[in-house]
């Protein structure tokens, strides 16, 4: 597999005026503030139930841009391909990138492909950088968070991490758990249209799961976060798989899932709006921001006790996303 061949596949798949300039880079126009986010994707296995590394690389970065309160517009795309990756697998991944980009309304405007010797990579690594226009009504910043704010999640947690887990070498178990990797930019932008600066924070709990993100936020804002174990949307099969493997779903990686911290006065309407979106039908309020226990996340356990929720140290699952 040569670089030239890979380039041919890429140019014919992504065909657009920016890319076709074939410059060293792309020149694009933005009005106003832009949000930029970059991420590298090294997931193993590359193909998993519900998706592959290609769509993960698009959705992951698109969602990160959206979490900044910006409308994702453009992506850069860089592949590091290990010798030995099958051509049909590469094509499948590129096609997934294309369809995920189309679905989330972004264009691939610049990119790079490197081939490394066998053993110097793990089939394929992808880096994407996303560029988005900040939504005119957005004022996303943890410094806007106030005591009493409500915390929402748009659907079942831990699904992506467990889908990957179920296919990892040495850990295979039979399940029909499917990754929920998807773009959530349109849903997030719709919420910004309706609720503007009432939305204080968006965050997607990928690595380290919901627990780690909430812990980081609590430390950031110097306030406490109180969550309820019973309120977490957890699909039955995922709960059972976590149980069998001894994993805490709160720490399992997510895709297509985001947390919103919202002013309490719009909480009811906000939840109703989330539920209208096909990607938010299982939305729930999972907790509140509080002046009690500053810097700490405390969970009310399902049997009426309390426990601390601390950030993930190291990795619960190696290399999920």
């Amino acid at each position: 597999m040569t670089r030239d061949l890979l380039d041919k596949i890429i140019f014919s798949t992504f065909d657009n005026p920016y890319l076709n300039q074939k410059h060293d880079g792309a020149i694009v126009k933005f009005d106003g503030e832009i949000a930029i986010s970059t991420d590298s994707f090294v997931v193993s296995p590359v193909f998993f139930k519900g998706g592959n590394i290609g769509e993960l690389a698009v959705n992951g970065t698109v969602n990160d841009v959206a979490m900044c309160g910006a409308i994702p517009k453009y992506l850069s795309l860089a592949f590091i391909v290990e010798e030995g990756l099958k051509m049909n697998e590469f094509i499948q991944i590129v096609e997934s990138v294309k369809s995920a980009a189309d679905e989330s309304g972004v264009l691939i405007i610049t990119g790079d492909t490197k081939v490394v010797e066998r053993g110097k990579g793990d089939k394929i690594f992808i880096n994407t950088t996303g560029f988005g226009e900040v939504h005119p009504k957005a004022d996303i910043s943890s410094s806007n968070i106030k005591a009493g704010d409500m915390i929402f999640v748009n659907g079942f947690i831990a699904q992506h991490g467990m889908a990957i887990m179920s296919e990892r070498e040495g850990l295979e178990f039979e399940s029909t758990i499917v990754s929920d990797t998807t773009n959530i930019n349109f849903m997030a932008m719709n919420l910004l249209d309706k609720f503007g600066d009432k939305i204080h924070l968006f965050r997607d709990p990928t690595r380290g799961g919901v627990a780690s993100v909430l812990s980081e936020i609590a430390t950031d804002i110097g306030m406490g976060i109180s969550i309820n174990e019973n309120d977490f949307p957890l699909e039955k099969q995922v709960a059972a798989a976590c149980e069998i493997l001894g994993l805490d779903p709160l720490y399992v990686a997510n895709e297509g899932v985001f947390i919103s911290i919202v002013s309490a006065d719009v909480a009811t309407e906000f939840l109703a709006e989330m539920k209208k979106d096909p990607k938010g039908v299982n939305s729930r309020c999972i907790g509140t921001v509080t002046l009690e226990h500053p810097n700490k996340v405390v969970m009310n356990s399902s049997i009426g006790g309390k426990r601390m929720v601390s950030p993930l140290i190291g990795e619960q699952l190696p290399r999920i996303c």
Partner: protein
Amino acid sequence: MKYLSEYRNIEDTQKVLKQLEKSVSKPWNIMEICGGQTHGLVRNGLLELLPDKIRMIHGPGCPVCVTPLNLIDKAIELLDQGIIVCSFGDMIRVPGSKKSLLEAKAEGGDLRILYSPLEAVKIAKNNPDKEVVFFAVGFETTAPANALSVLHAQKEGLTNYSILVSHVLVPPAMEAILDDEFNSIDAFLGAGHVCAIMGFKDYYPLVDKYKLPIIITGFEPLDLVQGIQMAVDQLEKGIYKLENQYARVVKEEGNIQAIKVIQKVFEVGDREWRGIGNIPESGYKMTKEFKDFDAELRFGIDNIVVAENSLCIAGDILRGLKKPVECPQFGKTCSPANPLGAPMVSSEGACSAYFNFSEHSIF
């Protein structure tokens, strides 16, 4: 999730807690043997919900915690020799004398993290030109699967598979704890999953010799409060006997098939426990028939000896003499990110339970 959700029921758990409050008249010290039980108590917030008079002492039942330092160094030595080492995930962040398995992996060691030792046999089969070692850590619970991996390898005619054995047994550890003159234990919650394998016949002599209640107990909130209630009932009445709270899983004779597999591959021998020292007849070693599958002998690493970290009080923690928060290093020089000893690393370790879930967390 049947048999789990019922035992996480808030009403039932609260009912037992209320009953417990009524029935306890004086202070009692109860040790839960198993680290899984410790975590069940802490992560559900049960320690704060129990009557003040009941003091739970956390036992040594965390296999990762009691694995001696030199075993980790031995596994690292195997990695350095270019051998594929397979391990349960918990083990890999425990510090050895110089580094952890995870650090050895970062330096290029071929470490594989598995859920089942049978996967290690597969790896051996797929890598015929490489030696593959499974780090066989654990109590009686993991022994059947580890033994079975050896039987599978033998059946497949594999000559490149062996296991690094560090199996320990619960009853001798309980005896060692009770023989300690500083122990203050009034009753035990026996380790449910260990008994699911081994049954509980071995515990009758302990009840008689030390005259204290032992309740074989499960891991869910309702299991734990029921086990505590049964212990308190006996203590208040001044009686002592063996009872089985976890009857939905544990039978008196245990799992006969699993015991047979264990006995084929392992025999009882002396074992060193981290922080406790050598306990006679407290672990498993390979039987003569399976010597070829013993990684220590095969790779000549049986002589590696190292001293424990002198700042870590894991021994006192594991014997229930001190609580994690009573350790001067707790949350300061010792945290899950920079652990001095295994109880801070393992998902079943008492120190990690306190650090991650309780109010004593420094976060």
